């Protein structure tokens, strides 16, 4: 229940949040923060329950037919993520209250944020993979609505769509991957899969399932080449960037990988795919970050880099790497969430996010500056902050990596060095130096704006000084979930002078150098224009922009608007399908008993064929209609020959009326003429002849095949004794099959309504009363 209840309550809050429009923004922010805040504290009290692999399962049936259940599992990894979601969430809500204090649509904003919070909580607490997927997609929807929150800006809308399509694409792959996992592993419940993981790993579907799930995780966690949506998502308001796009949602992919590690991990495929993708993302993200000048874009690319590090660490599949991953996860959420909020405050209070314009803000925004310094220090990995511990662990894990450890270390030092430069650019540079350009304007924001970043920044400091606060209580159970075995986690700030420390120092030196060389880096990047199309983002844009046009050309071809083309296609397909099934039938039981055909019949048929040709070659409508009439009366005569007088009479009536009506309307029709070219006519003739052949063969076959006695004998025998009618046809129409007649009568009635309405209700004919 402790899983479902918070999700439900937050969802309910989301439903009612639009009503908060009338409440001042800051009040609403503080008020709403109480909800995740309370759950955060409650979850803290549950920490002891997850020690040493302790867990709580909670299951309610939802859709058993499909294998979807409301099953939640409460254990180390889930709890770590849930605490991040709730803790950062509460602070971000307070922050959002200040950030959007006067915004006209803040109620809606809170609603989306809470929707996201509930969904994200669902992702990290769900034990059933399909339930997880439901929440996973809900986070994508919430993210779409939040990125596009500034609806009047084209850029917001485009970025929102881009994020939705990229993560949506991954989502569909993930869905297929989950289903394949279910096929191979026999269950959608992680708890159950954990016990059948050996069977799964040796199953033929293991690799396809793995690849599909990785697609899902990689798109969500912005791994190269899907990373481009994340910088685009910076069009969202700052609270969104701080919450979804640094601390929580983008880590859903990482969470999924960590969660599935005991099930899927341990294979070579897993190891190489993850380290490769993660390593590439780590390096590429860092180098894309270096030349940026916009605060949020700098942070976004460095987030990409950090997500790469996390994926790589999980791929290393060692105890140490898992430990490093969990610690770095916390470190990153603390400092990146803080820095994004700081970027928002700067934008909000100083009116710019361009690092080239920002300096000296510490004098006017002391609290914000303090928060930024703390977060940046943690990001650089400077002792005694938690970031230092995280980095040490990471280097240690890489050193002990099963393979390619040198390569990983070099890549790691480079990426970390760039991240140090970014930390200095974002967290230090705007606050030091000359007085701000517009001193009158930039000023410290209200408490709500700086409290969140400051607390997160302080978190980095406190946990760095006292790592045991989180080591055994929080990190250890999470590592145990990832490794599926107990791993001792004793975090220490100081490990003594060793190679790892040397690496850390080296990184800091390189990082500071990079910071000093940042102007040059920007120049180089400006000259180094990579063709847009080669970049995944450019490719995406190209495809999305070209899609409607290309689809339109295709559709104009298929959906030409010409009735003739439609009929042509339908008939050709009919001929092919019917002809094929006919030909593949062994031995055609065709009735060839033409022996007893009478002289009259032959004469009639010849006459009708002549009339048909007449219709085709007629130069005026009158002739064509007369010829059609001949065909109709010929059919009537055939009915007479085969002794069906009722049918013959009906046919004669219908034919007479048809010809008469035609003659009435003929003068209203446009001029008659042959409009198609000779090849077209030939083509149409071929189709017509083949249609005729197919139908003729069918009819012949039908009379050749007699699977059973027809029901007609019953009608003949029962017409008089049971239905009291001598005329069998009449009895069929009004008794045996009266429902058909009711239907046909209705058809006539409707036709009458139609004719009446068409005559009365049309242009210029008393339409408006």
């Amino acid at each position, binding site marked *: 229940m402790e899983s479902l209840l918070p999700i439900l309550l937050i969802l309910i809050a989301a439903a009612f949040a639009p009503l908060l429009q009338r409440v001042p923004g800051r009040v609403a922010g503080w008020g709403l923060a109480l909800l995740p805040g309370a759950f955060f504290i409650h979850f803290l009290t549950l920490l002891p329950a997850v020690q040493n692999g302790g867990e709580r399962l909670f299951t309610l049936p939802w859709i058993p037919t*499909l294998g979807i259940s409301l099953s939640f599992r409460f254990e180390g990894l889930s709890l770590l993520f849930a605490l991040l979601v709730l803790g950062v969430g509460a602070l971000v809500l307070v922050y959002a209250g200040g950030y959007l204090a006067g915004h006209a649509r803040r109620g809606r904003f809170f609603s989306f944020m809470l929707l996201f919070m509930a969904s994200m909580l669902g992702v990290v607490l769900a034990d059933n993979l399909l339930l997880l997927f439901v929440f996973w997609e809900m986070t994508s929807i919430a993210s779409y609505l939040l990125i596009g929150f500034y609806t009047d800006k084209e850029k917001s809308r485009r970025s929102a769509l881009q994020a939705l399509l990229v993560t949506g694409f991954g989502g569909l792959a993930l869905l297929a991957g989950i289903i394949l996992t279910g*096929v191979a592993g026999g269950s959608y419940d992680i708890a159950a899969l954990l016990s059948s993981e050996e069977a799964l790993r040796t199953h033929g579907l293991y690799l396809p399932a793995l690849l599909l799930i990785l697609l899902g995780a990689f798109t969500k966690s912005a791994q190269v080449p899907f990373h481009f949506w994340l910088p685009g998502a910076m069009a969202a308001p700052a609270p969104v960037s701080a919450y979804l796009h640094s601390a929580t949602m983008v880590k859903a992919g990482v969470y999924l990988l960590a969660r599935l590690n005991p099930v899927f991990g341990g294979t070579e495929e897993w190891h190489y795919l993850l380290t490769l993708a993660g390593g590439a993302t780590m390096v590429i993200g860092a180098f894309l970050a270096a030349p940026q000048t916009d605060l949020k874009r700098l942070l976004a690319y460095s987030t990409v880099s950090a997500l790469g590090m996390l994926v790589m660490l999980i791929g290393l599949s060692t105890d140490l790497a898992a430990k490093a991953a969990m610690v770095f996860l916390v470190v990153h959420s603390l400092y990146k969430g803080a820095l994004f909020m700081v970027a928002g405050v700067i934008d909000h209070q100083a009116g710019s996010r361009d690092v080239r314009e920002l300096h000296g803000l510490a004098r006017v925004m002391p609290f914000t500056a303090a928060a930024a310094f703390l977060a940046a220090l943690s990001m650089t990995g400077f002792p005694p902050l938690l970031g230092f511990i995280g980095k040490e662990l990471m280097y240690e894990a890489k050193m002990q990596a099963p393979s390619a450890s040198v390569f990983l270390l070099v890549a790691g030092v480079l990426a970390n060095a760039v991240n140090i430069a970014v930390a200095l650019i974002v967290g230090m540079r705007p606050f030091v130096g000359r007085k701000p350009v517009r001193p009158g304007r930039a000023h410290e924001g209200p408490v709500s704006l700086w409290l969140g970043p400051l607390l997160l920044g302080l978190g980095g400091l406190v946990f760095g000084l006292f790592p045991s606060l989180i080591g055994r209580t929080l990190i250890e159970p999470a590592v145990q979930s990832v490794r599926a075995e107990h791993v001792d986690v004793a975090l220490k700030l100081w490990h003594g002078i060793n190679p790892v420390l040397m690496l850390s120092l080296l990184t800091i030196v390189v990082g500071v150098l990079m910071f000093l060389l940042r102007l040059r880096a920007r120049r180089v990047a400006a000259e180094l224009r990579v063709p847009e199309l080669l970049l995944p983002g450019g490719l995406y844009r190209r495809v999305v922009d070209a899609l409607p046009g290309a689809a339109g050309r295709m559709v104009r071809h298929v959906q030409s608007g010409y009735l003739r083309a*439609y009929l042509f296609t339908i008939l050709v397909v*009919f001929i092919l399908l019917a002809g094929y*099934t006919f030909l593949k039938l062994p031995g055609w039981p065709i009735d060839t008993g033409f022996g007893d055909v009478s002289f009259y019949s032959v004469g009639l048929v010849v006459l009708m064929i002549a009339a048909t040709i007449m219709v085709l070659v007629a130069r005026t409508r009158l002739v064509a209609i007369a010829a059609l009439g001949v065909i109709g009366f010929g059919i009537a005569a055939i009915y007479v020959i085969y002794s069906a007088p009722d049918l013959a009479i009906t046919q004669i009536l219908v034919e007479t009326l048809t010809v008469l009506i035609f003659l009435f309307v003929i003068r209203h029709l446009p001029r008659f003429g042959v409009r198609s070219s000779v090849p077209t006519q030939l083509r149409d003739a071929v189709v017509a002849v083949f249609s005729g052949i197919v139908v003729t063969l069918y009819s012949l*076959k039908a009379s050749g*095949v007699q699977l059973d006695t*027809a029901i007609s004998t019953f009608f003949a025998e029962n017409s008089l004794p049971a239905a009291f009618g001598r005329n069998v046809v009449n009895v069929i129409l009004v008794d045996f099959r009266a429902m058909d007649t009711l239907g046909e009568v209705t058809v006539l009635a409707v036709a009458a309504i139609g004719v009446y309405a068409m005559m009365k209700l049309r242009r210029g004919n008393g339409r408006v009363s």
Partner: protein
Amino acid sequence: MNVLVVLPILIPLVSAVATLLLRSSVRAQNVIGMTGSALLLAASIWLLTAVHDGGILVQQLGGWKAPFGISFVADTFSALMVLLTGVTGLAIAIYSAAAVDEPRRRFGYFPLLHILLMGVNGAFLTGDMFNLYVWFEVMLIASFVLLVLGGERVQFAGAVKYVTVNLLASMLFLIGAGVLYGKTGTLNFADLAFKLSQTANPELVNTSAMLFLVAFGIKAAIFPFFFWLPDSYPVPPAAITALFAGLLTKVGVYALLRTFSIIFVHDTGFTQPLFLVLAGVTMVVGVLGAVAQSEMKRLLSFHIVSQIGYALMGLGIFTQLALSGAIYFTLHVAIAKAALFLVVGYVARKRGHTALKQLGGLLRESPVLAVLFLLAALSLAGLPPFSGFFAKFTLVRAGLESADYVIVAVALAVSMLTLFSMTKIWGEAFWKETPGGVPSADILPPAPTVENPLVTVYPTLTKASMALYFIPMFLLVAVTVIMGLAAEPILQMTGQAADQLLNPTLYIESVLGVQP
């Protein structure tokens, strides 16, 4: 006597006659139109519960035992489809009272609406091939008149394509029924299934099966027979399009599912791959058509085509889960699509047009409408936790479990494009602001002229007519949400329906009263 089985055609017939008799009073027509639909819904719920609890219900019309008379059969599949008619019919009837202009209502709109409902239910309930043909004719003529009602030039252009292609379908259907009768001497579904199961050469009817495939394929608007749909559906007022979108093509789907599961099952080595190919191409062509459009009604019309592919996919996979998914999907898409067309109708009423480029600002102006649209659109795109997700999930899972990987990949890719085109509507009509400045909240359509008398002066929407617009939208959107959240009971029923289709013994027994 199981009167219950014929109530779904009797009630609309009575409503049609009553509204026709009272055609001078628009108010009376409104009342009867809505009451009749409400009664129909009640009857269909009653029917479904009866079938669910008591098994297949059969009514031999006129007391002539099968196969000599006409049997009306309500199994779970039929009963579910009748319920769909009930829900859609009620929503449209309420909506029409506000959204369909007075001249159309004076000239037979409501009688036609109810006759159409009657035809649809007749098709769902009949157990006789020729009788099915008759109901197709009833639907065709009623829908044709609804298409041309109003007499606008553009209506005729669309309606002529509609009626011509559909008459071709009727012709093929009739030939098929004739040939089938010639071969088997019977028209009764159960009797056909029974006789074919008894004979040594059931493949002799395979050729006729192709006639039905093309005929029903045209009705269901699958590739390559769908052309009539995108040319004709966008033409009439949205209420009528919503009705068509919800029900007409679904009758084609129903007929395909019904006949190719209990009658034409002797050549599955050919028909199943064929259905899968047709399903895949239908999805792709339809969704690309939608992606290319920039007018809401046309865009959504192409989506109807695309979505039919999913139902067909279930028929091609042909497992219990797949058929269950196909039926669930059909129910889902009818509701979601009708809901979307109702939203479009309101947009058209508010702005006088539905061209995406010129639209905008609807989120700001009408947040409630925006939410309704968004929920229906996300459901259509197959996102959880709405009905569309569970429908697609069921089909995708069925496909993966039978290793039909290609169709699954196509289905997922098409989902993506569906989402893309839905966000196009959302972004253009709801998110962005109206290009060239903000329009007044209610742009009234131009006043009628001698040139263009059809444009009626709409009075500003009163509270009452606002309610008539929004209640049906709420109803349908609520159904799609509930179908998602409470998917289990519905999947139980569609699963039961699929079981009955895959094991026709019960159906045959119930109708013929014999042990086959």
